[in-house]
């Protein structure tokens, strides 16, 4: 059995009175891609955001149950250290309104990494997302002028600069066209050798294409979780079957 990089036990979460996550027992295996699928509002993004405590930003959130990151209880980990080891890529590409270079060194500056390391890290991270050849001559151009796909790659590169071990992707392709989506998917598969990846997607084909494990969520519950090939060929829960065969969702 592989080890869980991220896990929850009996996790419950409320937004005010709304019960968004119900008794979720979940495990994200290390160095694999795990996908969370389900209809909108099912709690998959909420679950993802538990792992880097992004839900803290919202008022009236109540969380009960335990969350473990690399075997350590989430409540014992310093939030800055946590977010450094668990990077996140958002639904809409969100480069800062600075130059490409400044976007990439932002995390390095905030974590006080020596300036002389910047050029190497910038090159390595841009190479990792296949942007180096395109961007090496215009690193000081505004990041907002890039195409949506390049912006999203840049955001992934930006996360890589702070050397996380786990990357959370929250519908990273929903703002992209099919060709750009395909490229980001190829990138994810490349990255899983060195990183643990958890991706939330509303696109079932995407989950089937890229992930090793899939969890299906519905109305705040993790209905079924297992190897992607099994979930998509012989789901054991009829709700999962109903969703993946397109009867609802």
């Amino acid at each position, binding site marked *: 059995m592989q080890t869980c990089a991220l896990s929850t036990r009996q996790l419950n979460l409320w937004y005010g009175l709304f019960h968004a996550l119900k008794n979720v027992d979940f495990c994200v295996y290390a160095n694999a891609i795990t996908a969370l699928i389900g209809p909108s509002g099912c709690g998959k993004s909420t679950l993802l955001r538990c792992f880097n405590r992004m839900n803290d930003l919202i008022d009236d959130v109540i969380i009960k149950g335990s969350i473990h990151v690399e075997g350590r209880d989430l409540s014992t980990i310093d939030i*800055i250290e946590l*977010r450094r080891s668990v990077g996140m890529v*958002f639904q809409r590409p*969100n480069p*800062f309104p600075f130059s490409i270079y400044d976007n990439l060194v*932002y*995390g390095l500056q905030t974590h006080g990494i020596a300036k002389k390391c910047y050029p190497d890290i910038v090159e390595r991270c841009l190479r990792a997302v296949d942007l180096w050849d395109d961007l090496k001559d215009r690193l000081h151009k*505004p990041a907002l002028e890039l195409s949506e796909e390049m912006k999203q790659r840049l955001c992934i590169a930006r996360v890589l600069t*702070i050397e996380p071990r786990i990357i959370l992707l929250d519908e990273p392709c929903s703002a992209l066209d099919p060709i750009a989506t395909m490229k980001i998917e190829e990138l994810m598969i490349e990255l899983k050798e060195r990183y643990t990846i958890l991706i939330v997607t509303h696109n079932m084909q995407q989950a089937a294409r890229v992930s090793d494990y899939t969890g299906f969520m519905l109305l705040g519950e993790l209905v079924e979780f297992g190897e992607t090939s099994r979930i998509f060929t012989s789901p054991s829960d009829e709700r999962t079957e109903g969703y993946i065969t397109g009867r609802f969702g």
Partner: protein
Amino acid sequence: MPKNRAVLIDQIIKQTMRICAFSSLFFLFLIFLFILIEGLPLFYRVGVGNIIAGFKWAPTKGAFGIFPMIVSSFLVTIGALILGAPLGLACAVYLAEYAGKKKKLFLKPALELLAGIPSVVYGFLGVIYIVPLIRTYCGGSGFSLLAAAIVLGVMILPTVISISYDALMSVPRTYREGSLAMGATKWQTTYRVVIPAASSGILASFILGMGRAIGETMAVIMVAGNALRIPGSILDPLRTLTSNIALELAYASGDHRLGLFSTGVVLLIIIMILNYLANFVIRQKVIK
């Protein structure tokens, strides 16, 4: 025909609204027209240089130099900005980034009230409290550049705060999330991402604050001492462009009166430039 009547009423209302909307433009036009008609002839007769760059203001003796007042107006404004801009920005940042809903609920109306206090009240408080404090602790008469800058620094706060606040609030939430998710602290996120992203709006708030300070009259007259010279230190008295008009118009006649209108022309041009700058700064960002 009820339907036709409804359409007709709709039309009447629309046209009435249009007239009301354009009347403000009409008033603006009238103000310009009259100030220029009254103010420009003297520029012709005496010469632009002798007015704008002239050091001596003795309108009854044919000297219309307002250079010391232009300098004084700018000094007071810059002083107000040095005191008011950091305070206003800090206040806006607190409101936009840190204050909870409850604190916002009483802070915002309080700041709007600050904007609603008549300027004579600010001047009054300045005369009663700030001028004596300066006289006691810094020397001089107390009626000074410093006193005017302090009073104006407070008076521009509502402008600086409300426009900076709007600029900060219009920074997309995704920027903040992106920064926090990288492990940046709240303060790092604020000063390295949110404030730079809102910088054009913040700059515009400073420029509009300047416009507010340079146009303020009553409070400045009350605390600035109104001496006709370029102040040598922040404890010296000075007279601004607006003060000059307000102080002398009551008894001015003939060329003296025209001289005051010329002062008004200069003031109008300065205000227009500041407003244009503010709009320009804001538009720049939108194009990007």
